[in-house]
């Protein structure tokens, strides 16, 4: 991986202005305008019908569930739900778009004018939400031969499984000022979508992706600079890197006395830079007009009120409540709340236990083991009761922290209870003074120099001796008891 973010040039003179358009596939069972399933990764062209293929004569019918999901997103982002919204046709030719127009919402979107609070390094930034609207996804082209891009390909294949999957586009105001803020916004938005249960928001599968507008302007200026659109960023990492790179590139151009051009650029993750996209000279004219095949969406007040009443707890509220209830620091709370599965797990384990201990295990050792054993939270074989049981053994002094880590690892391959594993592997903590005294004496005898230093006042060496005892007992010794015994044995 090459280094990407060049040293910032002129960062003090220029302010970066960023607006993000987020596309997110909705987690409905069926497509936006037909009853085809939306399962990811199915055999190409197996989830298609006359409607999503744009067969002559076919007509779209809006998916009520998708409309509901989009309205929920709007409400969670404090938007107004339009009483009447309308689909439009966005006309342009592209081989993976079955009808050569995309059904989208244009000047009458479902949700308008909201905001999202984003925590950036402990400071809350309020980001305006211009609109949330519904549209259909396109198919996917696969270009065979040459570079894998459409130009120069020998031939192209198209998979229309994705065509017609419901998408929301969430458009932010140009309120973001740095790559950090852009990433924090994207993270928070993703957390909101996950909390709402309207999307799996999987960046790696493309079900959530970003188009970012980046411009710079002299600090203090109200006018916007020339904007560059970065298309199709599909990870938080590339979002961050692309924005940081692009803002810096623009500053360099101006510093060199150059002029910025309004253009669309592509982020090359490997090379770590943005590049102009190949495009025709003329600007695209989408020739929007009201979609005559679909009646307008009428959102009645009772429907909207019902959706609002039904909103789940959102990440911000949840964080506040969790911080209050657990006393955990904001950073840890933020981490726990980011993923609903992690949070649910944490809450199940933390009930009746010390939240700080539980948080440190869920965030630390458990995550390490999940990676080690190639699991995710969704496939985590360690049920909350088992981790809870283990932590109970720890707090009761039945196992040491070191041994507890072994037990947890064991639980990934065994369905046994923590107590059984402790028993089977002989990991119970030794708190029997008699049993430990012999070991302590052996260790002191083997390290006369350390014992001497201790007596001379270097109490720090005790740790090394405790460590040796722990090693000899394979981590089972009660560390507190060991240090007591050592002090007594050396100090005499």
């Amino acid at each position, binding site marked *: 991986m090459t280094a990407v973010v060049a040293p910032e040039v002129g960062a003090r003179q220029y302010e970066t202005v960023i607006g993000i358009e987020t596309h997110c596939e909705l987690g409905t069972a069926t497509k936006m305008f037909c009853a085809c399933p939306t399962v990811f990764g199915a055999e190409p062209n197996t989830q298609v019908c*006359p409607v999503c*293929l744009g067969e002559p*004569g*076919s*007509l779209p019918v809006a998916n009520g569930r998708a409309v509901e999901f989009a309205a929920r997103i709007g409400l969670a982002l404090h938007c107004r739900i339009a009483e009447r919204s309308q689909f439009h046709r966005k006309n342009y030719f592209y081989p993976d778009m079955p009808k*050569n127009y995309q059904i989208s919402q244009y000047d009458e979107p479902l949700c308008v004018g909201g905001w999202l609070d984003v925590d950036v390094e402990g400071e809350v930034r309020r980001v305006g939400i211009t609109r949330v609207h519904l549209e259909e996804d396109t198919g996917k082209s696969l270009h065979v031969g040459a570079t894998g891009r459409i130009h120069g390909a020998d031939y192209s294949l198209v998979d229309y499984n994705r065509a017609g999957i419901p998408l929301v586009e969430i458009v932010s105001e140009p309120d973001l000022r740095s790559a950090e803020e852009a990433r924090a916004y994207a993270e928070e938005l993703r957390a909101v979508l996950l909390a709402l249960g309207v999307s799996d928001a999987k960046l790696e599968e493309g079900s959530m992706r970003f188009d970012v507008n980046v411009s710079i302007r002299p600090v203090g200026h109200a006018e916007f600079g020339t904007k560059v659109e970065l298309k199709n960023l599909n990870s938080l990492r590339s979002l961050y890197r692309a924005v940081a790179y692009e803002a810096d590139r623009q500053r360099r151009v101006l510093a060199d006395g150059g002029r910025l051009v309004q253009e669309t650029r592509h982020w090359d993750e490997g090379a770590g830079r943005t590049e102009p996209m190949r495009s025709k000279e003329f600007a695209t*004219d989408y020739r929007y*007009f009201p979609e005559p095949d679909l009646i307008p969406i009428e959102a009645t007040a009772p429907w909207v009120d019902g959706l609002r009443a039904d909103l789940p707890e959102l990440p911000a509220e949840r964080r506040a409540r969790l911080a209050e209830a657990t006393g955990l620091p904001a950073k840890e709370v933020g981490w726990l709340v980011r993923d609903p599965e992690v949070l649910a797990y944490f809450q199940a384990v933390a009930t009746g236990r010390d939240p700080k201990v539980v948080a440190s295990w869920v965030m630390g050792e458990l995550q390490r083991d999940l990676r080690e054993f190639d699991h995710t939270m969704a496939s985590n074989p360690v049920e909350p009761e088992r981790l809870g049981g283990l932590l109970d053994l720890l707090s009761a002094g039945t196992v040491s922290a070191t041994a507890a880590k072994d037990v947890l690892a064991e639980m990934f391959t065994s369905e046994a209870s923590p107590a059984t594993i402790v028993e089977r592997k002989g990991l119970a903590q030794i708190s029997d003074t008699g049993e430990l005294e012999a070991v302590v004496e052996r260790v002191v005898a083997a390290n006369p120099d350390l014992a001497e230093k201790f007596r001379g006042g270097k109490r720090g060496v005790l740790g090394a001796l405790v460590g040796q005892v722990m090693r000899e007992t394979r981590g089972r010794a009660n560390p507190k008891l060991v240090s007591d015994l050592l002090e007594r044995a050396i100090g005499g």
Partner: protein
Amino acid sequence: MDLTDLTAHELAERFADGRATAVQATEAALERIAATDELLHAFLTVTGDQALKSAREVDQARERGEPLGPLAGVPLALKDVLVTKGVRTTAGSRILDEFVPPYDATVVRRLRDRGVVILGKTNMDEFAMGSSTENSGFGPTRNPWDTTRVPGGSSGGSAAAVAAGQAPLGIGTDTGGSIRQPAALCGIVGVKPTYGLVSRYGLIAFASSLDQVGPFARDVRDAADLLEAIAGHDPMDSTSIPDAPADLTSRLSDGVDGLRVGVVRELFLEGTEPGVLARVREGLDRLERLGARLEECSLPSFEYALSAYYLIAPAECSSNLARYDGVRWGLRAKDSADVVDMMQRTRQAGFGAEVKRRVMLGTYALSAGYYDAYYGQAQKVRTLVRRELDAAYERFDLLAGPTAPTVAFPIGEKADDPLAMYLNDVFTIPVNLAGNAAVSVPAGLSDGLPVGLQLIAPALGEATMLRAAWAFEQDLGLSTRPTRPQEVRP
């Protein structure tokens, strides 16, 4: 008795009392097609085997004593713009020459479910754009009354088939008059139903906000039965009306006594042929004698309807036809440099002149900077037309006027003059803009060629409208009604 001379309800009587079978009626229709279609060219595809198979099924069902609807076993000519599963559907365009759809249109399914025997797919102006069926990618259809003349369009194939006795029933589509005008020019009954009464699912779209499927028949009763068969809510069509009345026929013979009919001054334009005007005036007098209360009315916005239509319809068509690009079905240009070149060359080769003209017009009308001046303005006119009509329906149950300004014109006469051709729809277009219902019913002959009387009704006013048309037709009588020509000759 030649079975091809009978109406659907006359056939149904014979099926019921055993004097004829569906197979016999279908064979007679197929024979008539074989004898006349080389000249008329009403059909693009004849599905004889399938037709006989479905006729046999109806006959067997009847033998088993199953209850059958009034149209079971009746042959029908289907405009080639409604998709038929496994049967080539072209919309009259070379770009869909060998297109075989994977599904049936809702109307087709409803027809099949009712035992209607589909004889084949009929000729039409390409993508339903035209008023003469000369714009078909497969050559024109001829008017059975005079085969040097056009049958009207765009549903000219179905209209000619019904007029020529190839089928007692036909299905057309009406975007700006494409059922009523050919019905008038071919001397048969044609109904443009209320927008949303008949499902558009499976109707290859020309202008989605205007298109509507409707029946052709030799008399009003058949047209009413056929309309009732195809009407009804379809969850696959978002614009389909959910709670439209299902009964359009039970009060057909209730007469016109006391019915208030507005005679629309703007439908009696200068330039309308005197023979047409004379037949229509006589028709209106007839309605008055039957008890209708006639009064002249003015709908000034009608003057702008044609212009508005020729912006809205092309705008929608430019978008609807974008999918014909050679990527997935139909024609694909060979040896293209890249995908854009392939799309351009496919469309260049596959579309006819009129389609290209309208796609260009529509693309222009929708383009940035012109939208407000053209498409937006046209939509305002449309609203105006709708409001004026709504106001008129406060005073009148029905509105009346001629269907078309001329009788059938010679093939080629207007082919090179698009504007002259567009004028043929001037009396029918306002109804499409407003989404109202209308019928064209034969009103006699002018110089030996049929003239149509148009009756217009508010949305979902079909029952009243058909009642008036039926009373008119009954009173005019079979003797003076332009029956189909017994022999088709050049």
